[in-house]
């Protein structure tokens, strides 16, 4: 069975969804991400959906599930690169992806994840008092 690759980069996992996923592939990805987080002790998951032409309620639920499962395992998830037409459609469909952090680009998402990891590691308040 084919799979969406889950790449490891330092403490982060990177996923780029480039195919029109059938439902089983989406569920497989959900499984793979949770396994990789525990295997590598990842603190962040970045999912790039810029090549996705649609996000329906099934894919939306998969993204929300990945975010929730990762959080339980101690990792933050950021979904990046959603196309404007996809965002419009998702909201009209009734899904605003609550609980899923989003960013416009891979760079912005990466920054968000690294900041979140630093805050967890050192404590946000300490960092502020030092600044």
């Amino acid at each position, binding site marked *: 069975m084919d799979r969406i690759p889950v790449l490891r980069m330092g403490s982060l996992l990177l996923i780029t969804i480039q195919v029109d*996923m059938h439902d089983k592939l989406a569920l497989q990805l959900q499984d793979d991400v949770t396994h990789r987080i525990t295997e590598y002790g990842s603190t962040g998951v970045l999912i790039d959906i810029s090549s996705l032409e649609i*996000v329906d309620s099934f894919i939306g639920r998969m993204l929300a599930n990945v975010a929730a499962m990762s959080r339980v395992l101690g990792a933050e998830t950021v979904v990046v690169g959603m196309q404007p037409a996809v965002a*419009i459609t998702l909201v009209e469909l009734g899904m605003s992806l609550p609980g899923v952090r989003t960013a416009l680009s891979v760079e912005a998402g990466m920054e968000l994840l690294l900041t979140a990891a630093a805050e967890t590691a050192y404590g946000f308040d300490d960092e502020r008092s030092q600044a």
Partner: protein
Amino acid sequence: MNVLKRDEQPLKSSSDVVAARQKVRQWSTELRFSLVDQTKLITAASELARNALDHGKGGAMTIELISNHGKSGLRLIFEDQGPGIPDIEQALKDGFTTGSGMGLGLGGSKRLVNEFSIESEVGKGTKVTIIRWK
């Protein structure tokens, strides 16, 4: 209303749902729908195709290029021979689900198209028709 072109896509597996989405994309591109309209129609098709597969135990999608008083559009008909829906009004409400979904399929796809109709008979099956005009 004239039907100018018609095609059918069986919905027997989750790769058929992907094929249905691709067919709708191809037809809506040919009709030069705007990107947002394309995305809305494909998303609605994806929801309804999955419904036919998961709740209706498989079925088929008919796609038609239609014209009416100089307007053109795409009509999609999703038919299954599944258990049917006992309470359509309830099934159209957001958050109503009998399966593993979010319960946004029917009500959500209704919001994404211009015309939506549903006929269902318990024990016989369900037929959902949607139209998006250009």
